[in-house]
C-alpha cells in the first residue's frame, strides 16, 4: 500500500530524457533519504525542472528508473506520486487565478469529491495544516487577489493537504522579497524535521542555510554530488558556473568614452503587474562592456524590453546618445541605432519558420534591402551568404528555416544580423545560455571585437564567469534595483554572489 509508505529513500538511477533536438537529462543519478534536504543547483536549462517533472510522473523518462525504499516504481501521472506522498511546488505556481484558495486545494483532494465538492472538509484540512506548520492562508480569497508570497504559501499548503511527506520545491524563492525569502527558509528548516525536501535554487546562501546535500547539474548532467557542510558558498559557486567554457577575456585597457546609455530611476511593470524595475539606474559608456549580473527574474527581461521599446515604462528616463528613448516604438529605437540580442532566441530573435536569408533582413526589409518596397533578392542572398560564411553559421544553405538550426547557430544568425547592421549600442541578454563551448567562445569574441570598435554593450547574464571575463564594469541587479556598480577588476565570484543574493554591505 503506497499510501502508508514512509519514504526512507528516493533514488534516481541513470535518468535520461530527450525532447526533440534537446537532451534535457543525461544519465542522472541521485538519492534523497528520510528527513534529508537536497539542493539541486545549476544554471537555467540545466535540466533540473525536467528531472523533477519526471519524479512527479508529469514526464516519462526515456531511460533509467526510480526507486522508493529500494523498490522500483514508475509513475504515469502525478496521482501516482501523490499516492507515495510526494508533492511538488512548481516554479510557476500551479494555481487557477479565478478560483478561491479553497477550490484550488479541493481540486487536488479527490476524497472531497462527492456529488458536490465537500468544501467544508477541505477547509478543515487547510486549518489543520495551517496550524501545524504555521502557514496562514485565507481559504476564501481568490488566487488573483494574492501577492506572490501568499500564493506560494497556498502552494505549500495545497501540497501538504494532498498528503505530501516528500516535498519538491522548484526555485521557491525566485519571486519572493528578501523578507519573504527569510521567512520561507525558517519555515522549510522547521519542516525538514518531519519531511524530506528537494529544492531547486540558484542562491547559494539558501543552499548553504537549508540543505544537507547538494547536487549540481550542468547541461543535463550531474557534475557534482556532495555534502553541503563540506563546501563554502564560493566553492559551490565555482562548481556551478564551471570552467569548461574557455572564455575569451577582456584584457585591453578601458577606453574613456562618453556616456551613451544613461538609465535614470527607471520603473517598469512586469506582466504580473508589480514593479519589476523599481528605480533602476545604470550608465554605459562608449566602447565598454557593462555586465549586469543577477539571478534571473530580478527585472533583467523588463530592462532589456524597456530599452528596446517593447515594454512601456512607468517613469524614469532612458537616455541614448543624449536623446530620451523611453516609450518609443521598437522601430523607433532600432532607428536610433540600437541592437538587441533577446533572451528568447527561438521565439523572439528569429521568425522560426522563415529562412536564414529572410531572418537576416528582419530589421532592414524597408531599408537597404529594398527599393520602392521591392526586395532586392539577389543582394539579400549575396549578403546572407556572406554573413553565413563570416559568422560561421552551420547550415546547408541560406534557405533553411532558421528554427531548424541548433541553438548556437540561431544565436549566430541573430548576432550576424545585429552586429552587421553596425549598431551604435548592443543590448545582449544571456547570449550563451545553453550553448556549447565552441559557439560560446565564438560569440564572446564577436562581442569583444564590437567593443573594441567603440560600441557600448550591456551584457545581461547569470554566468559570473562570462560577466567577469568580458566586462569593463559590472553592475548587479536585485529586485529591480542596481545593487552596486564596480570595476571588473574589483569583482570576485564571492563578492558578486553576495550582491546577487541581495546583501549589500554598503547599506
Amino acid at each position: 500500500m503506497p499510501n502508508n509508505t514512509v519514504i526512507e529513500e528516493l533514488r534516481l538511477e541513470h535518468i535520461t530524457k530527450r525532447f526533440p533536438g534537446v537532451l534535457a537529462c543525461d544519465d542522472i543519478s541521485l538519492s534523497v533519504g528520510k528527513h534529508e534536504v537536497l539542493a539541486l543547483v545549476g544554471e537555467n536549462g540545466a535540466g533540473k525542472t525536467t528531472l523533477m517533472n519526471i519524479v512527479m510522473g508529469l514526464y516519462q523518462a526515456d531511460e533509467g528508473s526510480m526507486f522508493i525504499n529500494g523498490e522500483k516504481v514508475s509513475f504515469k501521472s502525478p496521482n501516482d506520486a501523490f499516492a507515495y506522498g510526494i508533492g511538488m511546488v512548481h516554479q510557476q505556481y500551479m494555481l487557477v487565478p479565478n478560483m478561491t484558495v479553497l477550490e484550488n486545494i479541493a481540486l487536488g483532494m479527490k476524497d472531497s469529491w462527492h456529488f458536490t465538492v465537500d468544501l467544508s472538509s477541505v477547509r478543515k484540512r487547510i486549518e489543520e495544516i495551517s496550524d501545524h506548520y504555521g502557514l496562514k492562508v485565507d481559504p476564501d480569497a481568490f488566487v488573483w487577489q494574492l501577492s506572490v508570497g501568499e500564493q506560494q504559501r497556498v502552494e505549500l499548503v495545497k501540497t501538504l493537504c494532498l498528503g505530501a511527506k516528500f516535498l519538491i520545491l522548484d526555485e521557491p524563492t525566485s519571486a519572493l522579497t528578501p523578507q519573504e525569502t527569510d521567512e520561507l527558509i525558517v519555515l522549510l528548516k522547521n519542516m525538514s524535521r518531519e519531511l524530506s525536501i528537494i529544492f531547486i535554487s540558484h542562491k547559494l546562501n539558501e543552499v548553504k542555510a537549508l540543505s544537507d546535500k547538494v547536487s549540481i547539474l550542468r547541461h543535463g548532467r550531474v557534475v557534482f554530488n556532495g555534502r553541503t557542510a563540506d563546501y563554502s558558498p564560493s566553492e559551490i559557486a565555482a562548481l556551478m558556473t564551471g570552467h569548461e567554457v574557455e572564455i575569451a577575456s577582456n584584457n585591453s585597457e578601458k577606453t574613456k568614452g562618453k556616456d551613451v546609455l544613461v538609465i535614470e530611476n527607471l520603473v517598469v511593470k512586469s506582466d504580473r503587474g508589480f514593479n519589476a524595475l523599481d528605480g533602476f539606474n545604470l550608465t554605459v559608456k562608449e566602447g565598454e562592456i557593462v555586465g549586469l549580473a543577477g539571478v534571473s527574474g530580478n527585472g533583467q527581461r523588463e530592462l532589456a524590453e524597456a530599452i528596446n521599446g517593447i515594454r512601456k515604462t512607468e517613469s524614469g528616463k532612458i537616455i541614448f546618445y543624449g536623446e530620451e528613448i523611453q516609450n518609443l516604438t521598437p522601430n523607433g529605437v532600432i532607428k536610433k541605432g540600437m541592437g538587441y540580442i533577446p533572451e528568447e532566441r527561438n521565439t523572439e530573435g528569429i521568425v522560426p519558420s522563415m529562412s536564414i536569408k529572410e531572418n537576416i533582413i528582419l530589421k532592414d526589409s524597408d531599408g537597404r534591402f529594398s527599393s520602392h518596397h521591392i526586395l532586392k533578392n539577389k543582394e539579400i542572398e549575396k549578403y546572407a551568404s556572406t554573413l553565413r560564411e563570416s559568422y560561421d553559421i552551420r547550415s546547408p544553405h541560406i534557405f533553411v528555416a532558421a528554427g531548424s538550426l541548433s541553438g548556437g547557430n540561431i544565436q549566430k544568425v541573430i548576432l550576424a544580423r545585429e552586429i552587421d547592421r553596425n549598431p551604435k549600442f548592443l543590448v545582449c541578454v544571456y547570449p550563451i545560455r545553453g550553448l556549447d563551448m565552441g559557439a560560446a567562445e565564438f560569440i564572446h569574441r564577436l562581442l569583444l571585437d564590437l567593443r573594441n570598435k567603440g560600441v557600448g554593450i550591456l551584457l545581461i547574464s547569470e554566468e559570473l564567469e562570462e560577466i567577469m571575463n568580458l566586462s569593463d564594469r559590472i553592475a548587479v541587479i536585485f529586485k529591480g534595483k542596481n545593487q552596486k556598480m564596480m570595476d571588473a577588476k574589483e569583482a570576485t565570484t564571492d563578492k558578486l554572489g553576495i550582491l546577487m543574493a541581495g546583501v549589500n554591505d554598503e547599506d
Partner: protein
Amino acid sequence: MKINHKIIFKVSVILAAVLVALLVGAIMILATGESVFKTYSIIITMPFSNFRTFSEVLVRMIPLTIIALGICVSSRCGINNIGAEGQMAMGIIATTAVAFVVAPLPRFIAIPIAVLVGAIAGGIWGFIPGILKAKLDVSELLSTVMLNYAAAQFYAFMIRVPLIDPNEKTGTPMSARLPESTVLHKLFKGAAVHQGIFLALVLALIVYILLWKTSWGYKMRASGARQRAAKYGGINVSKYLIIAMIISGACAGMAGSVELMGNQGRAMEGITGGYGFSGIVVALFGGLHPAGIIPAAFFFGILLYAQVNLQILTSVPPNLVEALQGLIILIIVAVQMILSNQYLEEKFRKKFFSKKEA
C-alpha cells in the same frame, strides 16, 4: 538516414489523410443510397467530357481563386478572414449600383471602375474586423461571421428596394441586367468562362509578388509567422494586420464584381453561393500560396460543378459537396499538425526505423 524516414513519414500521413477523406466521402454517398463508384466517377469525369463542361469548372474557378488569394494574404499575416461571403456580397451590390452610373462610359473605363468599386466595398467590409482586431482585440472569427449576416441583409434590402429591376413585375428581388458596357465577355461562344479569368491569374501573380517580393509582404508574413519576433524586429504588426484584412476583403469584393459582371449578369438572391467559405478551403488546400491556390481552385471548381451534375445524374444531393469541403478542412488542419509534430515523427521513426538506426 534521417531524411528518408522524414519523407516516408510525411508521405504516409498525407496518403492516410486522402484515404480517410475518400472513405468518409464514400460512407456519406452510401448513406444516400447511391453507388460510390458511379458518384466518384461522375465527379471526376464529367468536367472533362467536353469543352462546355470544362468551362463550367473554369467559371467557378474564377471567384474561388480570387477569394482564396485574399484569404491567403490575411492568413499569412496571421488573421483568419471567414467573412469573404459578406465581403463578396458587398462587392456585388456596390458594383451593381455603380454599373448603371458608369454605363455611358466606354467599356475600358466602365469595367475597371465597376471592379474597383467592388474591391473598395469589400475592402471596407474587411477593414472593420481588421481594425476591431488590431485596436480592440475583437475575435475576427466572430466579427467576420456576424458581418456576413449583416451583409446578407443589406444585400437583400438593396436588391429588394433601391436596386430592384424596374421592369420586373412579380416583385422578385433582383436588380436589372447590367448595362452592356460593364459586362465581361465570354471567351468562347457557348462556354461560360469569361474574361474574369485573366483578372484571377493576374491577381495571383500580384499576390505572389506582394507577399514574397516586397517589404510589405515580408512584414505581413513575419507578423503572421511569429508576432513576437515581428514586434522585436520593429514591425508595426497592427498596421499590417489591418492592411491584410483590407486586401483580403478587397479580393472577395472583386470576386463578387467579376462573378456578377461575367457570369450572373444581375444581382439576385444566392449569388454568393458559399464561395466565401469554399475560398477558405481552396486557400488551405493550396497551401496558402498562389501557385497552390490555382490548382486547388481548379480542383474545387470540379467539386462545385459536381453539385450540378450529381443533381441531374444521381440521387446524391448537392449538399454532399459542402460536407466534403468541411471534411477536407478538418483533415487538412489535422494533417498539418501531425506533419509538424516532432514527437509523432520520433515515435514513427522508433517504431519502423529503430532497427536501421540502431
